[in-house]
């Protein structure tokens, strides 16, 4: 193993907190290398849209913000989900571009029918948007509760946006969303790359398996 240098040590404390050192100490050069690799990949900052027009982007962002709204913590908007989706449509989800185009048209139509005078989904108030989506998704809900390892593909507009919003909010920032780990911080996931015990409330002060068993046998 290499000997420590200042920068690495500082980084180690940043990722583990001061307490972690004993268990994790032996392998920190590897952590540093891997985490730095992750950060390098994550460096792409959202810029212009490639797949969407700015108007489409405005509509998609409004839908994503209904799926994961902003409250006292960041939502889809703050996590840059629309940039993730834009990138998705030029890469792994390029086959869903038409789904978005058709879906947005239907959504805008439903909005104007329900709220005459409101030009598009994004122009409606958040409360109106919620009502539009409640109606819009009546048909598409239903497959809840099934456990899957990965997302299913779907021609369904809402399911597609939902999946993309979730991944844009919570996938590692190297995928292009989850800006500054906004999604992870919101759900309580520490963005650190490596951890050491205790991990949470219940394993604090754990005396060890043998000790717990011995104590139990005494009783």
């Amino acid at each position, binding site marked *: 193993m290499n000997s420590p240098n200042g920068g690495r040590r500082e980084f180690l404390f940043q990722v583990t907190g001061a307490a972690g050192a004993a268990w994790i100490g032996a392998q920190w050069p590897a952590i540093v290398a891997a985490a730095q690799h992750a950060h390098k990949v994550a460096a792409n900052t959202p810029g212009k849209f490639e797949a969407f027009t700015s108007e489409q982007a405005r509509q998609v962002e409004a839908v994503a913000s*209904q799926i994961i709204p902003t409250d006292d913590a960041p939502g889809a908007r703050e996590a840059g989900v629309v940039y993730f989706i834009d990138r998705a449509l030029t890469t792994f989800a390029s086959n869903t571009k038409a789904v978005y185009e058709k879906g947005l048209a239907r959504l805008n139509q439903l909005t104007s029918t329900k709220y005459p005078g409101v030009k598009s989904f994004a122009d409606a108030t958040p409360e109106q948007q919620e009502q539009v*989506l409640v109606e819009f998704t009546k048909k598409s809900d239903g497959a809840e509760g099934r*456990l899957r390892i990965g997302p299913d593909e779907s021609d369904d507009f809402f399911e597609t946006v939902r999946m993309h919003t979730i991944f844009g*909010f*919570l996938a590692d920032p190297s*995928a292009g969303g989850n800006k500054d780990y906004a999604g992870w911080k919101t*759900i*309580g*996931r520490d963005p650190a790359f490596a951890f050491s015990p205790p991990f949470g409330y219940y394993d604090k002060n754990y005396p060890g*398996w043998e000790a717990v068993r011995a104590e139990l046998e005494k009783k």
Partner: protein
Amino acid sequence: MTQARVKYKPSDEVDFVIVGSGAAGGVLAKELSANGFRVVVLEQGPYLTAQDFSHDEVKVFVQHQLTNDSKLQPTTFRKTAEQKARVQPSVMYGRCVGGSSVHFTANFWRFHEIDFVERSRVGEIPGANFTDWPIGYNDLEPYYTKVEWEVGVSGLAGASPFDPPRSKPYPMPPLPVKGSGVVFERAAWKLGYHPFPAPMAILSQPRPGRDSCVACGFCLGFGCEVGAKSSSLSAMIPIAEATGRCEIRPNSYVHRIVVDKNGRASGVEYFDAKRNTQIQKAKAVLVCANGAETPRLLLLSSCSQFPNGLANSSGMVGKNLMPNSGTMAFGVFDEPLNDYKGFAVSRVLHDFYELDHEKVGFYGGGGLDARFDFTPAAFAMSGLPPGTPRWGKEYKKALRQNFTRTLEIFCHATSLPVESNSFSLDPEVKDAWGLPALRMTFRDHPNDLKMMAWMKDRAMEILDAAGAKAKWHAPVEEQEFAVHLLGTCRMGNDAKSSVINTDHRTHDVPNLFLCDGSSLVTSGRGQPTMTIQALAFRAADRIRELAKRGEIRG
């Protein structure tokens, strides 16, 4: 591994060509090359290394960076042979150097004595093609120990009163306990069970060239960036390559075993990265392509001498598929477990490993473990209780509340071998290379569904005893998707009812060997990789012995 890697020409007749670089292929490559043989390993997927791995759920779950992609290699599914199969993703396996051992969770239990002799103990089960192994636990024990020490398994010997005898302790202590482990352990002890530190193929102490686990939380589905997961890629392939006698050739999709006029294998035909056809010549062929692709390759290799597929005189190639039964129960707790940190599992119990079938009314058994194997986006897709709103304020609230407070009890258990549960070639659907697609025919034996329901009830009781404030379970239902691909070219002494003998040699072709999940005769209780690797170490010894005696060519 700075030394130049050896390259063979396809026209060089090497000693062994190995199809597949996963749990078994990696072990055989290492063992045979380290013993002086010239080896080529053909892997259909790419050669990725730690540098290519990341925590990107899009790459892993959506783009299938490490696994088979049903767009390129569609599979079809039907429940019974009377039905026409429809296109549907039905299997998942690793498709990169290291195979499924790269992305797996790394639970590493040994099989117990009972797994090898259960048919004799239990008797016949209607509808099942249930039989004893031709080898027993004692034959494999030295090789289980070898796996633990050579690939690197952490655990605590003697911690489970149900463990089979062992000749040596684990080479390193168990990984630290997680919150899920503490909660599960307390509840299990309260109920009179015997929880113990989970044996995991993840390093708790560093080894040369590999670091110990940094608890990043990205195990299931992901490649390990620090080499702590004891995949073939980190533990076996580097040693094989360092011998200077083993070439790992990625992006090589084998689709035919070439047989000469004497009925012996002379090499394998494959598509290279540019989809050109190549033939790698070899003195013997070892197929370690997994329990789906191994039988598929044998069936694809049918020829005038072997019209029903190669090595298939028994008709058992592709049959008796056992995916292991499994079900899940979930609990939400008051305080943060933060179980996303770490690795998947820290505690397991084997009190139900060997149930009294007369008492419970079904055959089988299994293990329960406490885990959290959701990465963040995967959790948001499928980790919340049924009935939770799927979008909006309440959805977000549930994510914020539950992500750090949820644990899962996973029940892993037996599946019975049923002859009609099988892999075969789809008569219509083709893959992107024009080859017949894999067709899966599967319906759980009713016994296995009964058992899963029983195991699920035990898991729910543990959640109650643990004080979960909310709990639910996955539906117990017929499976249509297999990850553990077991039993499809089973081992046996009788050439009429099995595909390979105890040397892993096919009964029909003397220089063709099969070793992977397909070799298994029974399913074990749900964690097959340990046994697949023990078989591979043993097979390497058997094959070396045959080679020494000049008997490989038959």
